[in-house]
């Protein structure tokens, strides 16, 4: 019987990670790809799990007919999951906003909270009730093993689920199909639990229903129906998950729009002519003879066509996701057909930065087509490290050009700081830089030689090359290159306090999020101004203050409970932060490669499993929980310090000199190690906790809750404030500091107990 519960726990783990990742992706599309929302979504998931685990779970376990309720709750969860997907897709229809209107933090918070609620609350409850019932299955075994075993099996299920989802399912099945598959597995697990009893008929039937929905048209229809609701008024032609993200294609009155992760990327056959022509022509007209050109993203959809007008010898185009071009070809327009079939075009399906690093070629002009460094993935093209790389791949007189958000009318502080941060990063590698303000975006050019911003020269070049474009006239160039305006914008950047943008310290992302926030939730503006000023002493003081609260509680209660709570809480915090840090760093160095992210998560989870098993053995052999816990805390602090040393900014460049497989293995090892700590600490602390309280379901719930709450804080504070503003190294140092504090607290709390 107990073993069946363990099997159930595995299925539960699988369900949990599947629901979490799937709902994350769905909500991300609904929030138009806003990366900050990732932190909020993960955090809310954890919070709701914690609530389910510490509130609902114990209540379920203590109820009279708890076994039947347990089965019922499982069935409910299996229904809640597809319902959550439904909510995630259609919630905007219930808001007072109009279609295409963006969302602010509070809307994102509430929408994710409410969409996730059905699934995560139930999932959390199922964990604690599973622990309780597992324990009841074998009265002779002490409670502590129960919780640890369940935890370990759940982790194993998570591992399996994460890998299967990332590598197999996401590309092949739509979200509803995956949800029904998970439902089927849950019902099957219930069936095995009830096998032999009459009531096992219910889960059997439910399993059958789930299978029918999965294999039949049910899932497919639900998927299309809800997907269409997100683009009402437009015809939805494609809605696809690739390993890089989500692509949607809509059509209205003969105009196609391509969305990446919910964010508009390409419009064909009539693009934003001003944006395309300025981006392509101004840099190329500034170069006397642009023969070999590299375009990193943002080429398809008009820019390439304009570039070809200059008669280059070759145009290399790096676009990460092959699906983008595939879909452009599937819905051809004159615009895309002509530019994609040009013989001089060489498409590379590779991350642009990776391509640049590997290519032996040098270019006359390099254009990066991203328009807003709003995500970590894109930020890598606006940093000191990238600009240094690009500088090395330009021929003499070569020009690098890119855009940043901006306005001709006024430069507000967030935009100004973002522009300044990137500009200062640019100046580290280029002798000459130029800013040309524009409507909607500012154009930046950089070169080692002088950049002549002369309308006369550019017009002459345009005539020599027989370029006919809608915007390029002498009049227009005079207006665009107006000296007074250029100077005014230059001066406004000077006043900015922003630090240069770096891979491991993504200030541009922070300012981009602050800018977005200024649009939608100006009430939070003060919060962002505050966050911008976060520094090590400040953060450390805040952490110390929280520590004092727990210390006071421990002193007053004369027990180890607060110390244990603080230690698990801060480990949960550290765990989430390590997770984000390693993903962040990996993204900074390699770009978004989904399979590798899946491997990192897998390594972390493996570590958790191994750590958990190791500790279980240790406890079974009668090991003392207290001293072991202390050693673990100290080890965590040292690990954090090691990471801090590794993440120092300079190490990024040195790291890239290592052979690729060595560096990637290092990442896997580090993920494994961080998982190990977290996996080991929970059973240890739990065993310690139980010695003090004696109650099982409640204890498991409380500590589980502490773990998850710590992770919640790590998710929100980490993604937004600590990692971009403090940077990776300092955030790691901060964790080390917090761990030292919890070590101290635990030491004193346990010492008094030991001597008693």
């Amino acid at each position, binding site marked *: 019987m107990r073993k069946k519960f363990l099997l159930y726990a595995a299925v539960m783990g699988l369900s949990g990670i599947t629901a979490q990742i799937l709902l994350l992706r769905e909500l991300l599309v609904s929030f138009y790809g806003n990366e900050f929302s990732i932190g909020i979504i993960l955090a809310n998931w954890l919070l709701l799990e914690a609530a389910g685990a510490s509130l609902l779970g114990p209540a379920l376990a203590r109820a009279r007919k708890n076994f039947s309720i347990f089965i019922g709750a499982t069935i409910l969860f299996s229904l809640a999951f597809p319902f959550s997907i439904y909510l995630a897709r259609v919630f905007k229809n219930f808001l007072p906003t109009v279609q295409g*209107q963006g969302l602010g933090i*509070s809307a994102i918070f509430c929408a994710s909270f409410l969409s996730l609620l059905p699934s995560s609350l139930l999932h959390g409850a199922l964990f604690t009730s599973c622990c309780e019932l597992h324990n009841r299955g074998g009265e002779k075994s002490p409670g502590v093993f129960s919780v640890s075993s369940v935890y370990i099996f759940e982790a194993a299920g998570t591992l399996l689920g994460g890998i299967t989802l990332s590598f197999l399912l996401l590309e092949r099945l739509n979200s509803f199909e995956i949800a029904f598959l998970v439902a089927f597995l849950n019902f099957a697990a219930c069936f095995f639990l009830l096998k032999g009893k009459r009531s096992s008929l219910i889960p059997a039937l439910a399993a059958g229903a789930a299978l029918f929905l999965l294999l039949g048209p049910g899932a497919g229809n639900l998927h299309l129906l809800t997907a269409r609701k997100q683009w009402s008024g437009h015809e939805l032609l494609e809605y696809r998950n690739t390993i890089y993200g989500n692509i949607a294609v809509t059509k209205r009155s003969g105009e196609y729009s391509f969305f990446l992760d919910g964010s508009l990327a390409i419009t064909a056959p009539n693009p934003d002519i001003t944006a395309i022509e300025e981006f392509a022509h101004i840099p190329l007209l500034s170069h006397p003879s642009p023969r070999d050109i590299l375009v990193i993203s943002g080429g398809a959809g008009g820019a390439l066509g304009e570039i070809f007008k200059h008669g280059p010898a070759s145009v290399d185009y790096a676009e990460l996701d092959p699906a983008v071009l595939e879909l452009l070809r599937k819905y051809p327009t004159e615009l895309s057909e002509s530019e994609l079939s040009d013989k001089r075009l060489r498409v590379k399906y590779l991350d642009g930065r990776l391509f640049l690093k590997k290519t032996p070629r040098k270019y006359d002009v390099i254009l990066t087509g991203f328009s807003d460094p709003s995500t970590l993935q894109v930020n890598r093209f606006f940093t000191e490290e990238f600009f240094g790389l690009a500088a090395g791949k330009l021929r003499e007189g070569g020009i690098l050009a890119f855009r940043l958000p901006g306005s001709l009318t006024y430069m507000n502080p967030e935009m100004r700081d973002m522009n300044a941060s990137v500009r200062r990063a640019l100046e580290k590698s280029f002798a000459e830089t130029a800013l040309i303000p524009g409507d909607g975006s500012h154009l930046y050019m950089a070169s080692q030689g002088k950049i002549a911003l002369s309308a006369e020269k550019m017009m002459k070049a345009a005539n020599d090359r027989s370029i006919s474009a809608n915007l390029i006239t002498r009049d227009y160039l005079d207006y665009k290159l107006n000296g007074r305006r250029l100077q005014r914008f230059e001066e406004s950047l000077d006043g900015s306090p922003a630090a240069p943008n770096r891979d491991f310290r993504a200030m541009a992302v922070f300012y981009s999020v602050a800018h977005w926030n200024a649009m939608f939730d100006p009430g939070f503006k003060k919060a962002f101004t505050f966050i911008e000023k976060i520094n090590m002493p400040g953060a450390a003081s805040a952490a110390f203050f929280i520590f004092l609260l727990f210390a006071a509680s421990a002193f007053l209660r004369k027990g180890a409970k607060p110390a244990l709570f603080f230690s698990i809480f801060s480990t949960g915090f550290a765990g989430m932060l390590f997770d984000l840090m390693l993903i962040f760093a990996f993204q900074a160095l390699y770009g978004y490669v989904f399979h590798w992210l899946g491997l990192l998560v897998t390594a972390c989870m493996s570590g958790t499993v191994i750590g958990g098993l190791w500790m279980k053995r240790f406890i079974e052999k009668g090991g003392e929980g207290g001293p072991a816990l202390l050693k673990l805390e100290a080890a965590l602090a040292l690990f954090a310090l090691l990471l801090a040393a590794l993440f120092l900014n300079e190490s990024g460049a040195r790291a890239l000199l290592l052979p690729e497989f060595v560096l990637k293995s290092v990442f896997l090892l580090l993920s494994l190690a961080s998982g190990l700590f977290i996996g080991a600490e929970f059973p240890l602390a739990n065993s310690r906790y139980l010695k003090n309280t004696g109650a099982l379901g409640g204890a498991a719930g409380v500590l589980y809750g502490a773990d998850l709450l710590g992770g919640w804080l790590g998710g929100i504070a980490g993604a937004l404030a600590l990692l971009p503003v403090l940077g990776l190294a300092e955030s790691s140092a901060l964790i080390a500091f917090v761990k030292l504090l919890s070590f101290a607290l635990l030491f004193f709390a346990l010492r008094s107990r030991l001597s008693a």
Partner: protein
Amino acid sequence: MAEKFLSSAAGKRGLMLFAGLILSAAIALSGKPAFSGSGETAAETRATPKVEARAEKEAMFYSKLKDNFVRCLLCPNKCTLPEGSSGICRVRKNIKGKLYAMSYGKPCSVSLEPIEKAPLYHFKPGHKRLALATVGCNLSCIFCQNWYISQKGPGEVTEYDAPPEQIVEEALRQGAESICFTFSEPSVFYEYVYDISRLAKEKGLMTSIVSNGFINPEPLRQLLPYLDAVKIDLKAFSEKFYRKVTGGELEAVLNTLKLLKEENAHFEIVNLIIPTLNDSPEEIAEMCAWIKENLGDDVPLHFSRFSPTYKLTTLPPTPVRTLEDAIKIADDAGLKYVYIGNVPGHKRNSTNCPRCGKTLISRRGFSVTSNNLKDGKCKFCGLSIPGIWE
């Protein structure tokens, strides 16, 4: 029973969670308007004058009520303000029972622009205008291109000190032939517009205004003698759109247009077509019919292409075909001067003679490439073309 639950650890947590939920709901539903009083950000490095120092210019259209309340009479919002508070536009404030124009003499945006960018196509083509604005606006369109200044109040952006004389001097110095009040909403910095315009006319400069038309008749009437050209945004032809998407009223804007016609002002209309929100052919047809009937068939009408901006971040740009369909509807309704905006290179950027069909003014983007008007008439057939040409 309840007490026991609440005093337990689980109960306390539950309470916190519940409180958090309520708080979140409260935040979401509060729908805090964009402005939250003045709030200087620490990132601002240029010192902006203290609020009291702005209280120099008394407003021109308001009435005093009892208890030191005032009612602003400038625009249909007709804000009733207790002492110390500002109107919806953020720039008109009640200080000790008097209404003051707080952004007077404090522009935040001043630049030299082509007149075609307003867009004003029948107003001395090809000339340069000095465009300026202060903060503030009496509407809150979710697609505002200039939200950084329109949805802000005094002190929230970097402002310059520039009394009217200085603006006029600047215009002359930069070689501008006209001064244009634009970007945010000129109606709300009415007194500044008024004083600059009077001065400008004395110095031989022309003047124009780019406005949402959400202004009361009397103030508009008094300003018109000092304005040469007006561009009005007729954002949609439905009250529902105006209410939901801009926070204004259609009726008021239509009244403004009728008044402009009555006073024989030169004005042009822009209609920004936003997919799914105001692009229905029926609505456009209604609008064109109304224009023809109430304003005549020779008011220049521009159908502009929408691009994602401000809060409408992911709505795709207007399909060009939609714009062309709208143009056809307007042509069929008998309107003579119908243009397309934000589609550089399109043939409907140019002005054609409604009688003989020849191209009168050809434009590429904002550049005028040829002008076939002579004394305000078509060079080829002599038809008089409405506008200000000299």
